[in-house]
Structures are given as C-alpha cells and as structure tokens.
C-alpha cells in the first residue's frame, strides 16, 4: 500500500471515466442498431410510365402510389394524394381542387389549403425524365408550386 489516496483517486477516476465512456459507447451502438438502414417498402423514387401514357390536360390518380399526376399545357407535375391533416386519401374534383373525405379539408388545384383542419398544403413532388424517356417521381424531394416538367 505505498500509494497515497490522491494516486488512488486518479486510478478510480480513470476507471470510472473509462467505464462510463465505454458503456455509453456500447449503449450508443445499441441505439444505432435500432435505426433501420434498409427498408422493405416501395422505393420512394419510382418511374410512372412514359409521357404519352398521360393525355394532355388530364389529372391521373395513381392509387398505389397515392399520387396525382397532372399534365397541363405547361408540362407535368405531381401532387400527393395524402391529406396533410391525418393521412387519408383525398379526392380530386375537377375544377374544385381536392377534398378529404375524412375530416373535410379542402385544397385548391395547386394543393393549397382552402378550408378545414389541414395545416399544410399537399406536397408537390419532384419529377424528372429518365434516360429511357420515362417520367420519374421522387417523393423525397418536394418542389415549388410553379414547378412543371416539360416532356
């Protein structure tokens, strides 16, 4: 027992610190493992067919993708069909915009809220044209209301 208490305290502190850091590291690893890295879901960037599949001046609902595809004189744009209030599917009424059947939220043709409990406009997703000439929607990226894809 040659060491005095101060030396021992250093050793103890070192041990405690090492344990705390190591333990926290292991816990962090555990916590990170809970975050999924791959998803068994439909991809969020997906092709939706060729431009000529959509008649001019039309609104097409893709029910599986919960998405409205607009083709206007200016080009293509895509608006989500998921009500921003509580996630029901909205219906499109020609000339009146979108109506949510669940809680009565209404949106105009651009997806902006006109009435009801919804707080945010319907998201408008980025669209592009693939090398193969297919329309591609990317639901991870939203775009301005005036976005139009010329194809």
């Amino acid at each position, binding site marked *: 027992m040659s060491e005095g*208490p101060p030396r021992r*305290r250093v*050793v103890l502190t*070192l*041990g405690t610190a090492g*344990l705390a*850091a*190591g333990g926290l590291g292991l816990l962090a690893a555990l916590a990170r493992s809970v975050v999924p890295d*791959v998803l068994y879901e439909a991809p969020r960037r997906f092709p939706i067919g060729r431009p000529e599949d959509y008649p001019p001046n039309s609104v097409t609902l893709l029910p599986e993708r919960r998405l409205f595809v607009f083709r206007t004189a200016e080009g293509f744009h895509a608006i989500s069909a998921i009500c921003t209030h509580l996630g029901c599917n909205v219906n499109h009424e020609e000339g009146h915009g979108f109506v949510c059947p669940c809680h009565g939220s209404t949106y105009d043709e651009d997806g902006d809220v006109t009435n009801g409990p919804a707080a945010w406009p319907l998201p408008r997703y980025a669209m592009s044209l693939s090398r193969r000439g297919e329309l591609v929607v990317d639901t991870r990226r939203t775009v301005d209301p005036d976005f139009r894809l010329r194809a």
Partner: protein
Amino acid sequence: MAVAALTPAGKGQGHRRAGLARRIPARLLRTFAVLSVVLLAVAVAAVVQEWRAEWRQWQSRFAEGETAVHGGDGDTEQGIQQIWLPDLDRVDRCTSCHLGIASPEMKDAPQPFRGHSGPWLDSHRPDRFGCTACHGGQGEATTYRDAAHQPLPFWSEPMASRELMEARCGTCHQERNPPSTYWLARGRALMTDRNCVACHEIPGRDSEEVRAPRLDGLALKVSPAWLRGWLADPRGYLERSRMGDFRLRPEEIEALAAFLLQPHGVVEADEVDWTGADPERGGEIFRASRCVTCHSVNGRGGTLAPELAHVGAKVGRDWLYSWIRDPHRLQPDTLMPRFRFDDDQVRDLAAYIAEDLAEPKGLDANQADPDPDLAAEGRRIFERRGCYSCHELEGFPVRARIGPKLAGEGDRIVDPAPLVARGIEPTRPNWLFTKVSGPERVLETARMPTFGFAEDEAAAVSVALLSLRAQDVPPGRITRDPDRPPYEPQGEFGALVRRYRCLSCHQIAGTGGTLSTVVLDRIGSQLRRDYIEQFIQNPIAVRVGLAERMPHLNITAEEAALLAGYLSTVMVDDAVEAEVPRDAAAVARGKELFDRHGCQACHIVGDSGGFVGPDLNGSGQRLQPGWTVAWLLDPERWKPGTLQPDHGLTREEAEALTAYTLSLPARKAQVLP
C-alpha cells in the same frame, strides 16, 4: 490480502470524497481502471469496425473523385442501397458498392464503379430484375467476400462466369433462347437431339420428343452381328449416333440381342424378284433423287439420316426394298419421305445401296429360336434401361420416363465425393458436367447411357441443365410461348405433306425441321405461284454453293399444283405488299444502288458474282416484288443471322433495287434437264 484494507476505512467524515478510493484495495482499483479502459477500447473498436465497412469506404471514394474522373453524375445516395424484389424473393444490395452500374458514362471506370456493359440493362431494368437473378452471388451481402464474387462457404450460388450466366437467362427464357446466348442454345439443342425428354420430364420441353426406330420386326431388318456390335458401341458404327452407350457387359448384350431378335409385332416382308435388278440404274436414281441431302456416304452428305456406306452390314436388300417402297409402313414416325418410285426403281435403288454403295455383307441366318431364358433376361435389361422410352416395341408402353424429373436439376445439392476423388472442384456445374460426360463417373451403377459428348458439348448441356431451377419463376417473369400445339396440316394438302415428309426439313408455324432455310409460313408472299409449282416437281438450287438441295421426290403435276395453290393462298404474310411500282427509272436507279452497295460480291448477275447469296438471274420469275422490298428493308426480321446485310435502305431505294433485280433476265442454262 485484499480484505486487510477493509477495516481501517470509513471512520471519519473528513475523507468523504476519498472514501471509496481509500476503502477499496489498490489492486482492485487498478484492475478496475485497466478493465474500464479496455472496455472503452472494445467499444471504440466496434464503432471503428462498423464505420470502416467496405461499402462505406467505396461510397466515400466514389463521392471523392471517381465520378469526376469518369464523368458520372456523382448524385449517389448515401447508405446501403437495396433492390427488393418480392416476387423473386431476392434482395440485392450490390448497388451499395457498384455505384456507377446504371451510368453508361462510367463504362470504363474501375470496379466496383464500372457501368454495366452491353445492352442488357435496357431490357432488364435493375429496379425490376436486380443483380443476382442473372449474376448469382449473395445479394444480401455488403462485403466483397460475402457477396460470393468467389465461391463462399455456405452459399450455394457463387457469381456465375459469363458462360454459366447463360443458364440463368434460360431460367426465365424458357422457350426461346435469348439473343447472345450460345451455350444455352447449344445445350438445349443437344438435349433435344439426344432425346432427353424420353426419359426425363423437362419443364417446357415435353413436346420435343423424337421417336427412335420402332423395334418390331427387328429380326427381319438387321443382322445379329450388327446388332451386337451396335449395342456394344453405337458410335463405333455411326459416329454421330444419337443413341448413347449403355455400357453393357458382353453377357448383357447377348441377352438383349436375343430378346430383340425374337419376333415382335406383325411385320410382313415384301416378296421381291431380284432378277433383272440393275444397280447401275439404281445409282442414277440415287443421284437424281439427291439422297445425300439427308444421308451421308462415307461421311459426305447430310446429317439428318443414317450413313449409308456401311449399311450393308446392317440390313439386307429385301428389307431395303420394303423400306424404300414405303418407309411409313415400317416406321410410322420416320422423317423419310415416301418417294414416288415404281417397283422397278425401288428394286434397282435397293440393289445399288445394298451391293454397290455399301460393302455387301450377307446377313446372318436369323437364329430360329433364341434361348428363352436368355431372352427373358434381355427383356429385363430392356425394361431396366428404359429402352422403350425411345424405341417403340409391341407390348411396352410408349413413354417410360424412367429418369428423374429435371425440374430443379440446376439447384440440386450434389454429392461432392466422386468429384473430389477425380480432383474436380465439387461445384454443381462441375457435377452436372461430369455426369453428362459420363454418368458412371458420378455413379457407377447409373442407368443413363454415355452419350459421348465432346467436352464443349457436355459443358453446353450443363448450362441448359443449370437453367432448370426448383424455385418457381413468377409467371410474369417467364418468357414462354403460349402452349401451341404442333402444326398439323389438314386435308389433301396435309396428306401430301405427310407423304413427302415436307416437315422433316421445312418449318410451318414453328413445327418441323431446320435443314431447309426456307420457312413455309409466308412462302406464298415470297415466291410466285407458278415458280413454286414448277420447283416442287423439279427442284433446282438457287444457291449454287449450298450442299443441301431439295430431294427429287417425283411429285406429280397434279400434286404440285395442289401444293402450290395451297402454299400461295394460305401461307402468306399480310404484312407483305403484293406489288410495288417498277418503271424504267426505278430500274436504272436500282442498278446504280446495286453497284454502289457491292451486291455482286455475293450474288450472281449475268455470268459473274459470288455464290454466297442466290443467283439473281431471272429472279423476276421467282420472287414476289413486295417480299423483295420487305426483305431488303429488314433482312434480320425475316431470317435472323442471315448473311444478307441490312444496308439501311430507304423504302424508295429498296423499291428501286427490287425493280432492278426482278428485271434481270433468266439464263438459258438455268433449268435442269
């Protein structure tokens, strides 16, 4: 002593902070400190290990510069990439490292960033097909080793070589061979040729069965000595024998021959009067009828029918007479047409073949009564080896299928022992290869015969077998023609087609042989009716260089008119126009185009030109103009792999060329006497 430090501790209040440190023995404190630091090190090591995962390193390298060098868009996603194909039950994470795979501009980048070569991704979109469905390997893996780029323990599907990948094409492409597969197509053709479906059930190939000669009345046909020799070594008699070597022991051969030479079935021999037989005239008939289109003599000639040089050792002239007179009576399934010969012609021909052509070897006297015990033993061998799978014989079922079903053959886990013993890597392809090369090499008591495949042939068959996988391919993924019944020609036309066995060489609606390059489906749009009628009666070769020429069947004028009428009215393609404008200006322009494109390099016009394509003199009497235009515009459409190049002509150019070609006069010597 650890406990010694306990007692003096904790008396006063003055050492609050130092309390713990003072009470616990220093040795334990030190151990604690060391262990804690080691724990921290372990935790750090775990994080570093994860952080330095291969795919992360590749992704950062890709982001850093590979794209800048090779011109990719660099807009890649972070994290493990996954292509999930629920219907194939596959998850492919290959794109986590192969980041440039879909970018053509990355074609020359080093791996793993290289863009995919070839046109395949256009037809097989990665998001719909993934990677491992074609390439093999472990799609779930995120390291080079675990992805099974090289064989990996506990993973049965290492990445396939270029050749073995063709097997994976065949899993979905079940009916037709996809373009740019060579081994698969060859393997499938070999499997059809060796009649694998006779013994094995093969998905999608059931209709391909070929019948081998019927064995009823064999005693009247062949000599016992020949039969024994044949059973011992089929390839010794006929090099390209479709029948395999059953590796029979001499006593088995004796027994089987005794059984086969028993009188089976009701076969009556024709009574022939051989006086006045003229082999010389028979030889003339033999040549004029072009028997060598199908038969070979001393290895020269067609491969569709048996070699005739040694046939004298096998059959007698009496049987030959019966055979030539009406082959269909003896072998209802034979490919041989019933030529329209009179009895004298048949006699002379038989005499020529049996005496002049083949070395005349007298047939052994038929054994009157083969030993019944021996014959019974032979019967057992006949049954056990499934001979009746291919050969019909009275009293036996038509189809045996004694072999195992081949569905799932490509997936089967194999016994490595025989391969290891031979110093061969015990992989599934190698096992199949060894088995196909010689079944006794993997199982000494195998019933399957040795088909005498050359090495590359065995490899091709292995590829075809590997394509047969146990896991069901989702129906939407299979490219299989709708089950189409074989074409059955009807009525009078049908009777003639059967008599003359047109479908032994020609194809109609996908049914028939491939010896002739002339597909009959659209022959009416292609050729003029009067030409067809004339050609059938007196076939002349349009392509001088071609060895196979249509045999001279002695078809009568009435029959020819009927056939030509049917072909010209029914066998037409509506997409082909009937007539195209042909004026003098077009002819002149056509001549110019003809010279510019060097057509004469392959076609004869006048007295000069190549023998590669058909002689074009007098083609106006032969070809329909609409067809000629359609052909020139897109030859590959009508005949894939043709030697006619696609010059990329405009319609106007094709019409002009047609006008010129069809205006060429016939040569005088063109019609054979």
